[in-house]
């Protein structure tokens, strides 16, 4: 058993370190204490099973891994909280300087508060655990300089028994106290069954070829899903969406007017609970919602509206969509629908009112608002199609049309007057 106890002559391959073999965990512990006391720092012990007390015997300090885990756990916690605040509860108006696809949005679900800790805790918890666990595993590997595809010790025939019934101390040549002769002397005096030198690896340091091929193939396959995603995002298709899992977008549900046995009236549609108002349905501002001020037609715009050029432009756009077909682009009551009806002599056709004559000019704003909302004579109501704010914008534009059709020379800016005939 004593063969190979002499260090190799310096002419051989470079020395990687010295390996000493022991028969029992007790001998290993004693040897480790001696090596520790001799002041070595770059060395390790190897055993087939965990040996109690080896940490103290080797003088290993407690690992700093818990701090890494703690930092990443806190990071996961903060990330989970920030992610949910950003995507569900941030006000995009305050972050309008960001591109639209990076802005969050106020995402209301079932009347819950936009930001509420009880709902956020599961995601915070999972992200905390996830980042902490990843930091534990990856940090443990990194602190141990793993993974490595090759280590010179593994080429040592004797070392194979480290996984069955032998215990080893290995001191690397990189240790500042390492000296081939003195270290060999120290290890020989520890009562082990053998001491031998380990040559630096003669094998090439590159990865095995099969591993390189396998990695390349896996990376190529990993590129496929992003490619499919990119194709889906940047091309158009008439095919319906593929649903691998039938999600909430496609679930059983009751439709309007269906029967439901659970309720006494057998209707799946539920009437509004008496005495309640649905969110956004509280219309307690008669000026804004009905165009009335203490029972009379309003003659002013509701105070919450700011009458600006962009507001009138909005009104122009809405007017051209909803009103111009009958009332005409200039508001004179000569829209193409009316022209066609007159051309075909449609019986009973009432010519639309001109919006720019004196009668309409003198009408209060609220009266016009009411006409748009509820219709008049053969004009249908538009209240369901045009939101209140747009109705007021249309009125502002109609007022502009009236002004333009009844303008005097003084209304034209001085510098533009020469252009008039």
């Amino acid at each position, binding site marked *: 058993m004593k063969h190979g106890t002499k260090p190799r002559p310096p002419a051989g391959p470079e020395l990687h370190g010295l390996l000493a073999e022991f028969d029992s965990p007790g001998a290993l512990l004693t040897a480790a204490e001696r090596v520790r006391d001799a002041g070595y720092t770059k060395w390790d012990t190897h055993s087939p099973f965990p040996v109690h007390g080896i940490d103290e015997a080797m003088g290993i300090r407690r690992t700093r891994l818990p701090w890494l885990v703690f930092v990443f756990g806190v990071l996961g916690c903060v990330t989970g909280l920030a992610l949910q605040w950003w995507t569900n509860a941030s006000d995009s108006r305050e972050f309008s300087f960001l591109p639209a696809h990076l802005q969050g949005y106020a995402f209301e679900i079932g009347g819950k508060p936009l930001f509420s800790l009880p709902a956020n*805790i599961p995601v915070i918890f999972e992200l905390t655990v996830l980042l902490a666990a990843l930091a534990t595993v990856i940090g443990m590997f990194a602190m141990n300089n793993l993974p490595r595809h090759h280590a010179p010790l593994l080429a040592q025939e004797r070392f194979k028994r480290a996984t069955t019934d032998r215990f080893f101390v290995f001191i690397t040549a990189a240790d500042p106290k390492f000296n081939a002769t003195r270290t060999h002397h120290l290890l020989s005096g520890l009562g082990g069954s053998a001491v031998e030198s380990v040559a630096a690896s003669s094998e090439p340091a590159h990865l095995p070829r099969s591993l390189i091929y396998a990695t390349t193939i896996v990376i190529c396959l990993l590129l496929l899903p992003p490619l499919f995603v990119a194709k889906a995002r940047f091309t158009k298709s008439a095919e319906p969406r593929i649903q691998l899992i039938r999600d909430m977008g496609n679930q059983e549900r009751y439709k309007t007017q269906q029967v439901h046995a659970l309720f006494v009236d057998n209707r799946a549609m539920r009437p509004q609970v008496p005495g309640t108002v649905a969110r956004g349905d509280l219309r307690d501002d008669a000026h804004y919602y009905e165009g009335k001020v203490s029972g009379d037609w309003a003659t002013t715009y509701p105070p919450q509206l700011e009458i600006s050029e962009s507001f009138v432009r909005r009104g122009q756009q809405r007017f051209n969509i909803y009103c111009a077909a009958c009332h005409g682009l200039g508001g004179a009551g000569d829209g193409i629908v009316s022209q066609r009806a007159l051309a075909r002599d449609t019986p009973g056709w009432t010519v639309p009112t001109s919006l720019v004559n004196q009668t309409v000019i003198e009408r209060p704003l609220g009266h016009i608002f009411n006409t748009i909302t509820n219709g008049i004579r053969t004009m249908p109501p538009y209240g369901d199609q045009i939101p209140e704010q747009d109705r007021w914008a249309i009125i502002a534009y109609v007022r502009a049309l009236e002004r333009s059709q009844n303008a005097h020379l003084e209304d034209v800016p001085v510098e533009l007057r020469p252009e008039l005939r």
Partner: protein
Amino acid sequence: MNPNMPQSELSASRDFRRPAARVAGVACVVGIAGLAAGVASGYSAGWEVFFRSYLLNYSFVLSLALGALFFVLLQHLVRAGWSVSLRRLAEFAAGTLPVLALLFLPLVIPLWKGMPGVWMWSAPDVVAADPVLQAKAAYLNVPFFLARCAFYFLVWCVLARYYLHQSVAQDTDGQPRRTLAMQWWSAPGMLLYGLTVTFFAIDALMSLNPHWFSTIWGVYFFSGCLVGFFAFLALLVYLIQGRGQLASHITVEHYHDIGKLAFGFVVFWAYIAFSQYMLIWYANIPEETVWYLPRQGDTWWLSVSLLLLFGHFVAPFLALISRGPKRRPGLLALAAVWLLLMHWLDLYYIVTPRPSGFAAPAAPLHLTDLTLFVGLGGLFVAALVWPMTRWSLIPERDPRLPEALAFRNI
């Protein structure tokens, strides 16, 4: 530590028999005095208040014994070596279950006699006016309830007696086959334990609000039992070692592991309690939120809820997460006292509020809550300490004892 410790050192705990007898005697006297004071204060506060306080403090001592029974079963189930020197104390704590079975009688005698007790579904006039309770009467009726309770206590007493007696019999004959037998029975025992504790929690505590239901309820009660038990175990070991006993049998390594388990179950309790809360909060269905309504409705109960959140989870989580406090017995014992207080508060939060819609009593906290704590606590301690006057504090000839004595955390 030397695993081949001489027998004389293992038997050192025999000196403890006289002080143990004194403690048991004092605890018994204090317990009976507390019970008498409880009856007296209950007489003036009304029987409903008395029975609620009794159920609260009874649940507290019962949860410690049930936690101990779980610990004993678990150590056998996983063939644990490290915990052998702690196991006898848990066997003693579980051994109080026959006494606790007797102490359950004051709660069921009113039902037997057809008087209104603490559970409102047992009152015929309440059921007659309540269609939901009529629908549940197939399960929530007095004879079936009594039969179920008898079954739970039968299972617990048989298991507790079996494990205690096998273990102390091994002290004299040293038969390893007793260890194998206890191991074999631990698996079916654990199954029975899980079912009985779950259904007991439903019957005794959830049915205080008989309209309400929570499918996680059994686990919630169980998690509290374990928090209470590990805190109690740490405190018990600390107090016994303060009397100069077990100094070399239970080391800082064992404290460390009790601390880890206490920490783990604190987190488990929070996980379960929050799981129950969040689903009910999120769905916001009246028949489920009704349980939380009286518990958040006024300042007192909202404060109790928040104290549970911070005192039963956040504070012990931060206190026990690092290695240091778990390896300092004094600090761990301090944390254990705090956790026991919080465990009591958790049960107070469960038991005391009346169901939503019922008139709350004048005060949320009564003198009976305190006197009955002293009474039932005293009797529990007496029942726990009395066996220490007869038997050793550790399983002296358990085959795995050397492993426990040499135990070290890696």
